[in-house]
């Protein structure tokens, strides 16, 4: 039997500017999540380099990658990935054990509007609330880049818009670079940069000089 080589991403090259809102757009299976995972240090490329702040993260060891994830990037996932055995406060406070420059957990929770749920467990919250906890946790690490994989994918559209607004406003107020992976074209209208991916290749990289606000977008 012969094995065929499968390339999730091939010949991909782009540059992200600090403080920008970038959307990676593409259909399912296009390779956009793989791209995000590479940026986040969850996966390593077989060839090529990924340079963040002048540091090639594709050559880092396991421990160095763990430190990179702890200090440089924050993740927001489609299914939240909160620790079910920790309360809202504990989920956010947890990152203080790995991030030297972390932000105050209570303040973050307050900013996502969940002060009254400090001591609730994730199972006691709605999907939107859980995603807000996830955003608070990601920002509490005080990372340079916020990586979001379909952050509204598991939410109804009304809640999704609300979460997205919150995500963008907080990222902006804390000056974070934010990368969102989605197949939702509407979200792309709000981005500073749109990277279109298909079949593992970048089809286009488009910069928007006047991105729309969430209220202007038709959802």
């Amino acid at each position, binding site marked *: 039997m012969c094995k065929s080589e499968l390339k999730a991403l091939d010949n991909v090259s782009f540059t992200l500017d600090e403080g920008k809102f970038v959307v990676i757009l593409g259909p399912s299976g296009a390779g956009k999540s793989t791209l995000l995972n590479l940026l*986040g240090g*969850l996966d390593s490329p077989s060839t090529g380099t990924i340079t963040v702040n002048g540091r090639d993260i594709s050559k880092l060891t396991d*421990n160095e990658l*763990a430190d990179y994830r702890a*200090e440089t990037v924050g993740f927001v996932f489609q299914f939240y*990935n909160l*620790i079910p055995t920790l309360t809202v406060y504990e989920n956010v406070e947890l990152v203080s054990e790995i991030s030297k420059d972390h932000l105050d957990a209570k303040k973050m929770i307050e900013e996502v509007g969940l002060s009254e749920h400090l001591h609730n467990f994730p199972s006691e919250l709605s999907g939107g609330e859980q995603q807000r906890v996830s955003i608070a946790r990601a920002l509490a690490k005080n990372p340079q880049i916020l990586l979001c994989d379909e952050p509204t994918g598991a939410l109804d559209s009304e809640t999704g818009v609300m979460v997205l607004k919150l995500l963008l406003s907080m990222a902006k107020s804390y000056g974070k670079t934010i990368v969102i992976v989605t197949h939702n074209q509407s979200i792309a209208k709000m981005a500073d940069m749109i990277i279109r991916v298909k079949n593992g290749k970048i089809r286009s990289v488009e910069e928007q000089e006047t991105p729309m606000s969430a209220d202007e977008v038709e959802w």
Partner: protein
Amino acid sequence: MLVRKLFRTAWNYKSQFISMIIMITLGIGIFLGFNMEWYTIEYDTSRFFSDTNYADYRLYSKDGFTSDELHKIMETDGVKAATRYISVNLDIKDSKNKSLALDVSENYTVSTFIVTDGEEYNEKGDGFWLSDKFAAANDISLGDELTLVFQGTEISGKVVGLIKAGEHMICIADNNQLMPDYSTFGYVYISPERFRTVLKEKVKNTYSENIGKINVFQKLIEKKLNDMSDDEILDKAYGSSKTYTAKVIGYNRSIMTESVTMTDTLADELGIDYHITSVYTDKNITEIPSSDIISGKQDKAQLMDTFNSFVGIMDAMVVILVIAAVILGIVVLYNLGIMSYVERSRELATLKVLGFRNKSIGRLLISQNIWLTITGIIIGLPAGVGALEWMLAALAGEYEMKLMLGPMTYCVSVLLTFCVSLLVGMMVARKNKKIDMVEALKISE
């Protein structure tokens, strides 16, 4: 925070964790059980006899032994100590079918007893030192009054001590009793002084002048009691239907057999057809030449070798069982650990994604096992000891066996359990190193 997570995870997956605790508890219990049995046998066959200076030899004489004879025996080379000793069965007043072997020894450094509760032995004391098992079986406590009856003569006193005696390790009243039954028969010791003043008239010339049983070092000689010569017994020679009647002139006790012993003269008088099959000698076995008329030779060393071989086989079996238990424990704990890990892989992958190093998560998994082990040990130690005590009390409570567990047993079982648990924890933690974060996060809740 991770510690809090650890305990809450344990609570959320309690069935798995309880299974692991039960496994550890069983492991500890089984290990303790094996060791207890092991150590108990060793203790009862060496320490207990040793502690009580159990007699190495018993000498018997139908006329009893005088003080001079005792002294001559004590002067013999190799004899460290000897005592004259009697044991007679007495009824307990106002009780049905309850009796006690009343024991008296002139020298309590030979075939003595261990006081488990109450006063130490006093050779001029008035009290009774009663078998602790008989006391327990008959609800008798320290300070209770007992009245014993010997051929119409009563001897009363308070129970001043509860004891275990090597002489009565298997405590039976006579040949008709197959198994010890402490509810009906036990033993009691009194001081020689007390014996002289109370039973002297009944057992005259047998104790003050001629005690019939001499313990040589750990040896005991049981004296025949001339005053009991009025009793008669009926007996049949083995394989014969003919019945003979003879007077009882004394009792003896042997660890080898239960039998009636008589002189060749008496056997001839009674017309018992017998032939000599064994000869006892003090010669070294190597000095006895082989002969067609000798079918076999046996000496004390051979008996001891046989026993040692038996203990050796027991030891080997216990070692095999312990190894099997450890392997079983590793397999079961590993599988439970992996099951638990797989169920929580998404959670652990999340920790890695957040930036926790493999080492931190590994520590979490190992410490989780350590906590389970501590819980298992806390429950397992008393449960194992309790279960074994109950088993031995139920199955072998009639024997004078004292359960023993050395500190080494506790140390080894705890250390072994910790090592197994640590090993399993490390194996699971190693698996975590290789977890594919991306794949693990795809698992939906």
